[in-house]
């Protein structure tokens, strides 16, 4: 073989090697960058900036897509609850006038895919969306990024004097919230706790300037969210709460009525909230054969006795089941640095196997006291043990069976 031929062969091999190896190396390099990076990467996606028209409603969605979100419609088609909810949140954002909408979407931890996405819309226009690639961050880092994003973009925060009366709404969608400071189960699917939710509400409320309850309405669209423990944590931040004190189908509580959020001015907050709860209830009863329970909690009327309801779920806890509790929730607790101020809900045992039951089944439950300010839309399941149950108190108690017993 001549020297030229050898040189030619060598250069061919080297160029082939380069053609093959370069993209591979690039892919590996980028993979490692994603794998070990704890920074966020953002992508700007803006619509035409809207500076015209006032903005007086603020809607915040937290969509937790962790865990299994698959469900099927009547035709057997697969749907993913988090994706459906994100779609609806975007629809609301594009249709609700005079409204700013924040969507904080949390996805399961997977390589090469965003950990989550944050969206901001104002007056029907997409203003900003940011992908988060932080792979190894905990839930508290994610929450911090939401609060930071909100602080940076919310008109309410940026221009606090722009409107004298803002109305604000907060919607959480996801699997059952674990009570207590750490999740009952292991694995990334169950990271979000009631404390996390309370932390988010407190963080956002601080930015709102502490006008009363902070939020006109908080919806907790998750299974078994109507427990005294969960309601007690968020009640200082919400004028009204919609939650489900029983399992809730993955098709969730719909927020469709918020396309016309301006109707709240004509109807008044209470009537608007009741209309939204009724809409969600009717939609769910039409779609499912399981029990449907949608409850509306009027904070001003529930706060005086919530500690007493919780005492029913926690034998030995202070409280006065026979009447109004002296241990009241401090509404000023919905602010920064107030973690655990409502100590009535901070000591619950959260290990073992959870078992839920209607608090009214407890002989000490006082209907004349403990149904004040709670409106329940209830349809029993069409089959199963609960088939004959005609009503629900709106309060779901939880007891943990100790596995070692």
């Amino acid at each position, binding site marked *: 073989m001549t020297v030229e031929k050898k040189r030619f062969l060598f250069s061919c*091999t080297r160029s082939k*090697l380069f053609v*093959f*190896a370069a993209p*591979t190396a690039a*892919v*590996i390099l980028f*993979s490692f960058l994603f794998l070990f990076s704890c920074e966020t990467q953002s992508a700007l996606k803006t619509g035409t900036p809207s500076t015209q028209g006032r903005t007086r409603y603020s809607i915040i969605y937290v969509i937790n897509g*962790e*865990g*299994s979100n*698959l*469900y*099927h419609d*009547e035709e*057997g088609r*697969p749907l993913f609850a988090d994706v459906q909810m994100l779609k609806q949140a975007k629809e609301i954002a594009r249709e609700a006038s005079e409204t700013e909408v924040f969507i904080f979407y949390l996805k*399961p*931890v*997977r*390589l*090469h*895919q965003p950990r989550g996405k944050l969206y901001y819309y104002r007056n029907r226009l997409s203003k900003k969306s940011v992908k988060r690639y932080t792979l190894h961050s905990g839930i508290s880092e994610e929450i911090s990024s939401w609060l930071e994003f909100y602080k940076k973009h919310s008109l309410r925060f940026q221009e606090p004097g722009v409107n004298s009366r803002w109305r604000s709404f907060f919607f959480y969608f996801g*699997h*059952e919230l674990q009570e207590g400071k750490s999740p*009952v*189960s*292991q*694995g*990334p*699917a*169950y990271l979000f706790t009631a404390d996390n939710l309370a932390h988010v509400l407190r963080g956002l409320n601080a930015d709102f300037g502490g006008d009363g309850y902070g939020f006109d309405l908080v919806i907790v669209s998750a*299974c078994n969210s109507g427990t005294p423990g969960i309601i007690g944590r968020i009640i200082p931040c919400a004028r009204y709460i919609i939650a489900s004190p029983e*399992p*809730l*189908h*993955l098709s969730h509580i719909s927020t469709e009525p918020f396309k016309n959020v301006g109707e709240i001015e004509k109807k008044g907050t209470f009537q608007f909230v009741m209309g939204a709860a009724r809409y969600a209830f009717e939609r769910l009863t039409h779609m*499912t*054969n*399981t029990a449907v329970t949608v409850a509306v909690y009027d904070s001003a009327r529930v706060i005086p006795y919530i500690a007493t309801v919780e005492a029913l779920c926690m034998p030995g806890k202070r409280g006065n089941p026979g009447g109004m509790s002296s241990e009241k929730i401090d509404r000023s607790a919905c602010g920064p640095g107030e973690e655990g101020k409502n100590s009535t809900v901070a000591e619950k045992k959260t290990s*073992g*196997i*959870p*078992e839920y039951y209607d608090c009214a089944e407890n002989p000490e439950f006082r209907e004349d006291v403990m149904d004040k300010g709670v409106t329940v839309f209830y349809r029993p*399941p*069409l*089959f*199963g*043990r609960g088939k004959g149950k005609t009503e629900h108190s709106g309060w779901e108690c939880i007891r943990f*069976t100790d*596995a*070692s017993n």
Partner: protein
Amino acid sequence: MYKVKILCIILLLFVAVQPLMAMDNSSRLEDQFKEYMNEIRMKVNKIDDPVEKRAMLNMTLQKIIRALDTVSTLESLSEKDQKAIAVIRSGFQDKYNELNGLNGFEKVADTDLNSFADYMLQDLEQARRMVSMSIAAFIIIILLIILIL
């Protein structure tokens, strides 16, 4: 050179497969179980004969109960897992009893079998009954139901 190429291909495959490997395995299995139950529901809806409908639902429930029984006998299972499995088993046992009118349940009428199949699926989709047990126990149960029994 050949070895370098092989090494590069392996690395490339490794990078490509990583996202799948990193997925939350228990969620994927839960999804598979839901898909399996949806298939049963759709089959039941397509069958005209109520006797056949009921037989298919019975067979499915028996299979699930058998899988749960098999796993609960494993010695390596923790006490917590055993209790969690017992809770889940009692839910499926209730459905079996109701389908056949046993243990005080009113028997599901022939005309309601499609609705009952829907209910079985929706009950599974809405409630995370498996969350109380360890991932290992959960994986074994789903594999037994879907692949083996």
